[in-house]
């Protein structure tokens, strides 16, 4: 699929913003009575969370052909994951804003707590529904796997906690809390790395048992597109297409692994070991930036690696699964030319 920047920004930034909110809500709920979470942390991280979610909302409207009637996207909540995505994002952004407002106004009531709970629910709802938008497209096998919702949820929370840690480590807070959060972040980054490696393995080994034969209805192993029915590119030859080679994608995979997981995990380990507490503030910022940039690459690659079966018609389908022993053996001597 063509990597649509608006959707990359939406899913990464809104996800991270919600992750920050989940962290600040939990810290506020647990420690507010002791008064050890400084007001500066809640307000700064709350504003960053709101800003990231706002970037997501704005990016998502630039993806629409008719943004002025974007509200209509909420109508089919019964059927469409896209509707659910829009509703849960509005819910989490709205609740974050109200929660921060109540906090700022000093309203420490059960209403604030309820608002926070709703915000957390909206955030988790957004992780699930935004990922199901992709996972429910069963004609893109790289997307339609349980790993998609798990990844979106874990990556969203992890990147949010990374941003939260950057604020925490730079505010006047009990060092034990910083250590605790960085320990959690280290564990989550490790889990994320594992999930991503599993996803890459899944992508390399799985395949859809479709071919040009059934797509055009001729029983012949050699089918070559001569004319796509148009003198120039059109919607269907660009929306589902990306120009990158397998080698380029492989090196992008390595970049993603380093920026998103390896560098942040190393830094989190340094912070956790309390090796250089004096520079943990700056280290945590590097960690958060590296992870956010890595997540943007990760999501972009997620789009690129999605291979929609309608590419079969336009000579753009990538017959992959080279890592699958059954498929690669079965393919020997069966030429399927697609260009």
């Amino acid at each position, binding site marked *: 699929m063509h990597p649509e920047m608006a959707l990359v920004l939406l899913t990464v930034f809104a996800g991270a913003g919600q992750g920050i909110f989940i962290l600040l809500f939990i810290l506020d709920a647990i420690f507010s009575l002791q008064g050890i979470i400084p007001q500066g942390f809640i307000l700064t991280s709350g504003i960053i969370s709101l800003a990231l979610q706002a970037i997501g909302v704005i990016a998502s409207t630039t993806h629409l052909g008719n943004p002025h009637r974007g509200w209509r996207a909420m109508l089919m909540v019964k059927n469409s994951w896209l509707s659910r995505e829009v509703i849960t994002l509005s819910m989490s952004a709205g609740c974050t804003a109200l929660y921060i407002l109540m906090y700022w106004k000093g309203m420490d009531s059960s209403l604030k707590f309820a608002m926070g709970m709703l915000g957390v629910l909206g955030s988790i709802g957004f992780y699930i529904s935004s990922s199901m938008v992709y996972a429910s497209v069963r004609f*893109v096998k790289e997307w339609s796997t349980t790993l998609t919702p798990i990844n979106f949820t874990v990556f969203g929370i992890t990147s949010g906690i990374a941003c939260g840690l950057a604020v925490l480590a730079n505010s006047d807070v009990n060092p034990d809390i910083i250590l605790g959060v960085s320990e959690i972040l280290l564990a989550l980054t490790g889990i994320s790395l594992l999930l991503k490696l599993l996803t890459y393995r899944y992508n390399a080994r799985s395949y859809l048992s479709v071919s040009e034969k059934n797509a055009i209805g*001729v029983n012949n192993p*050699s*089918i*070559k597109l001569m004319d796509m029915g148009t*003198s120039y590119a059109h919607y269907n030859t660009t929306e589902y297409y990306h120009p990158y080679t397998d080698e380029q994608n492989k090196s992008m995979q390595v970049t993603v692994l380093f920026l998103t997981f390896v560098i942040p995990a190393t830094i989190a380990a340094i912070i956790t070991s309390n090796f250089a507490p004096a520079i943990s503030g700056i280290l945590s910022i590097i960690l958060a930036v590296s992870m956010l940039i890595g997540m943007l690459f990760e999501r972009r690659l997620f789009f690129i690696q999605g291979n929609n079966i309608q590419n079969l018609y336009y000579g753009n389908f990538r017959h992959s699964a080279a890592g699958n022993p059954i498929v690669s053996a079965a393919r020997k001597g069966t030429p399927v030319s697609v260009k």
Partner: protein
Amino acid sequence: MDTRLALVIDQNKCVGCHACATNCKAWNTAGAAGPLTDRDPYGKAPRGVWFNRVQTYEVGQYPNTEVHYLPKSCMHCKDAPCVKVCPTSATYKRKEDGIVLVDYDQCIGCKYCSWACPYGCREYDDYDGVMKKCTLCIDRIYNEKLPADERKPACVLACPTKARTFGDINDPQSEASVKILEGLGFKLLPEVGTSPSNHYLPKRKVKIRIDEDEILARKHVIVVTEKSSSYAEVIAEDIAVP
């Protein structure tokens, strides 16, 4: 049983002339579903919306190759995945005749429906910001201002080889149903479970064996001479099933 309108396309007859596609474009760009925007139509990179495109494939390996034409437009699937994913219900399937339509006034242009279509039959119009696709010429087939024999999709009327048939495939007596039954009609990508309404009639080869004795016995001088260049075999291959 409900009416299920569809196109049946005979691949034995299609010669890849693109008449269906151009007539579709002409009617629909001016009709109720139009305009089908074109950008830079006479320039180097023309880009526009079509409801129907004829694709050409080379099948087999040299020297045993043949050309295969595939005119493709929305299949009006019975189990249409595009309908299920639309967040605004702009895309819907009509109960009365099974036609899948897009309500341009409700579509927000999120393009999600097109991702869910396995056939690549939806085209986004970036000028109007909405998704467009074949309507089975709904503004022709029920149009009482048109003569009765012209109440058919524009592509069907344009096809010079009569490769396209329009009708209710739930009615076993309809011309479309009879053609599917007799011509062994098939669906594209049957394994993806969308149950498309449009059907294709497969290209079929008929080989007639003519023994040398038989030819000599009939003293058919021309065929005897042509046979040496295997012309007779080629003619025989090209005869379609009646």
